């Protein structure tokens, strides 16, 4: 008797565990909503995990937003269930003109939706390179897209990995708007390579534009400097 028990009990328990699990597990979301935050069909460069979009779905008891963070290259993605969602660009959150028009999104399988925004400024034609052995030099032009806000400053950030922004960096240089007499002319920023990067084979750099009164900045794509 004891032998039978000791033999069959573990098997029985295992079996119960297996069927027990099935019962109350939910399906995981299968659909993927992805896309980019774009201006003029071009993705805008942002701070890594700095900007969020919000997704809402009504008709369920729990009414709470789904935060969707945008990557630094402007891409976003969210695993969802099939259904109708409302995508909202949160006011004052991104470096662009507030636009609270809701975007209706029908998610069915893998869905791609680009989110159009209108930045105040964009970085154009940027080149970032070493100048001599101890300096980094960035040259770029600023394009005004929307009126209504003044330029606050432009910055150059350098960092060890290709995630470089105002928060993740090894060093930065800022030129405030007062020192940029002509917004249409190309702007140059130079900075010394910080000690932490001096010995590195390669590092990454980005330039950004800060609009007065807007927390987040618009960035160029990161450039690898060897």
């Amino acid at each position, binding site marked *: 008797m004891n032998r039978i028990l000791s033999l069959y009990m573990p098997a029985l328990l295992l079996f119960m565990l297996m069927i027990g699990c099935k019962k109350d597990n939910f399906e995981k979301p299968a659909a993927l909503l992805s896309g980019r935050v774009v201006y003029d069909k071009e993705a805008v460069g942002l701070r890594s995990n700095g900007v969020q979009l919000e997704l809402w779905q009504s008709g369920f008891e729990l009414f709470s937003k789904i935060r969707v963070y945008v990557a630094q290259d402007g891409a976003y993605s969210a695993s969802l269930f099939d259904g109708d969602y409302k995508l909202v660009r949160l006011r004052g959150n991104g470096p662009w003109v507030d636009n609270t028009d809701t975007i209706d999104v029908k998610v069915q399988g893998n869905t791609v939706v680009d989110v159009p925004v209108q930045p105040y400024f964009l970085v154009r034609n940027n080149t970032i390179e070493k100048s001599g052995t101890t300096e980094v030099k960035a040259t770029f032009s600023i394009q005004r897209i929307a009126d209504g806000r003044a330029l606050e400053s432009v910055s150059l950030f350098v960092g060890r990995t290709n995630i470089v922004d105002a928060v993740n*960096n090894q060093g*930065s240089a800022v030129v405030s708007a007062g020192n940029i007499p002509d917004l249409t002319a190309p702007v140059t920023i130079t900075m010394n390579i910080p000690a932490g990067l001096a010995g590195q084979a390669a590092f990454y750099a980005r330039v950004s534009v800060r609009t007065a009164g807007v927390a987040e900045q618009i960035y160029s794509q990161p450039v690898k400097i060897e």
Partner: protein
Amino acid sequence: MKRIYISCLMATGILLLTSCMKDWLDREPRTILTDEQVWNDTKQIVALLANFYDRIPSETGLGDVNDGADGRLFQWRNMANYDEAMWSGQSNEDGRNNITSYGFGSWYLWNYTYIRDINLALENIEKYGVSLTETAKRQYIAELRFLRALNYFDLVKRMGGVPLVTTQLIYDYSGNVTNLQTPRAKESEVYDFIAAEVDAIKDVLGNAGSTTRANKYTALALKSRAMLYAGSLAKYNSLMPAPITLPGGEVGIPASMANSYYQKALEASKEIINGGPYTLYKNNPDAGENFYEAVTKKANNKEVIFVKDYLLPTRKHWFSYDNIARGIREDNLGSSSIAPSLNLVESFEYKDGSNGALRTRNAANTDYIYYNNVADIFADKDARLYGTIIYPGSSFKSLSVSIQAGVMVWNAGRNAYDVVEGSDLGTTYTDGKLLTGTSGPHRSIQEVSNTGFYLRKYIDPNDKTSTRGVQSDVWWVWFRLGEIYLNAGEAAFELGLTGEALTYINALRERAGFGVNSLTTLSIERIQNERRVELAFEDHRLWDLKRWRLADKVWNGNVSNPDAMVYALYPYRVIRPGDAARDGKYVFVKMVAPRIRAPRFFQLGNYYTQINQGVLNNNPKIINNPFH
């Protein structure tokens, strides 16, 4: 005969039974107090008031309470979340050194349970308190209204304008709840409410001389602080490139209102300074010890206005156990949790009024500055540094606190120093002298300072108070005269009355060991720094930076910004035989504190805390704060 006897017995039995029946179901309950009993008994009313006093929320404190739902916030650990200090205690709280950004829900408070309790008390004392004397009744009502006004101040400084609910809300079962849904008041309206409440109750509040229950001057202290906040919010929000506002005024006070708020703050402050029974604490001739006692000592302290008091052996807290310097702890565990930052230490000026940055390198930045004693680098600093922080070379409870990170051994071959640090505390180097002090600092060991500094403010000076068995009864100061001087000074300065402002600021500086009239000119930056050093760890820094709209600039999340990172100062003993000018001397190294993983990052969306979705779902008239 026997039959008569029996029937008599039965008759009495019936009588007894029926008479009993009458109030059998109508007895006085023994475990429930009725409203009539509570509201006519002064002892019970005071007991209830004690509960309300105990629930005043605070971002930091000396206790270990964080129940956001009920609004009971009193968490000392939060002192490590800003730029005054970092976490050096148990490593399971190291998240405080790695706050990649403050969440938009940080500092959330929506304690309408507390407001309802007070509103209920106000209505019941009117309704049931028939046998109370009229004066007593008026006084209790005033006290309750003070607590409610104080709580609305705690709400408005976190959330912006909130619904002003001043009566009990009762559902009438009609299926319609719109009459119970109160929209958010304007931010300015909440501040106006606080001022009006204080004006209405200040002369009715009794409790003269009490520091634990509200009296006239406690209420005025609330008004002084609240009006200063409102004035600076009006001024500095409007100076932002894009002011933070909501169309209905729930957030954002027009700049035109700034002056009247500053005026009210100045008047309330002057009423306390000139009319109140308070004086700046000057009982100890040693300026540093004196400042420590001004906040911590209870006997003959005429400076404190309102405190949360504790009393051993039963009313006590763990703050000294958790924060005493490691080398002099009396328990075998705990200590060192809140380690003050070098950022704060450097904001204490030198007594000649020069910038407080510590001098570690010579003018040409080619070599260290060599100090004979480890405390010499702090010579001639503002005495409030001593009163707030235990730094290398200072002592506490007459015990010297041994703070040394290691030794620097001259390596002639390399023409540089080899840095040697102990793997444990209280270690000896091969030359038989000290390697690493019993109080560190150490880069990685938990429960030892990571910055090279320890807290003195609020640490109990009495024997055994840092043990788990005894604990501490140091009080928490809500309001003290020092702050009122600063409020008056700032309000006067903003109103253009610089001369008057200087008298207040200089009075505080004189107590801190500066000369008479040490300042002759004033700037807002000076006042800001003065508040930072005078009121360090008293739950002011976060709110001050918020109202000056500086928080997003100072704590901008950039690792290369020295204000956003928490810095440490590590002292080393120099071993360089043959060089008498350097051997045996002390040098100091400034660095980012090794346990700090991320800079402080305060975003524009942090100026007003996000309102929970559940609140918005329940009351569609409430709109969320900007950026959320």
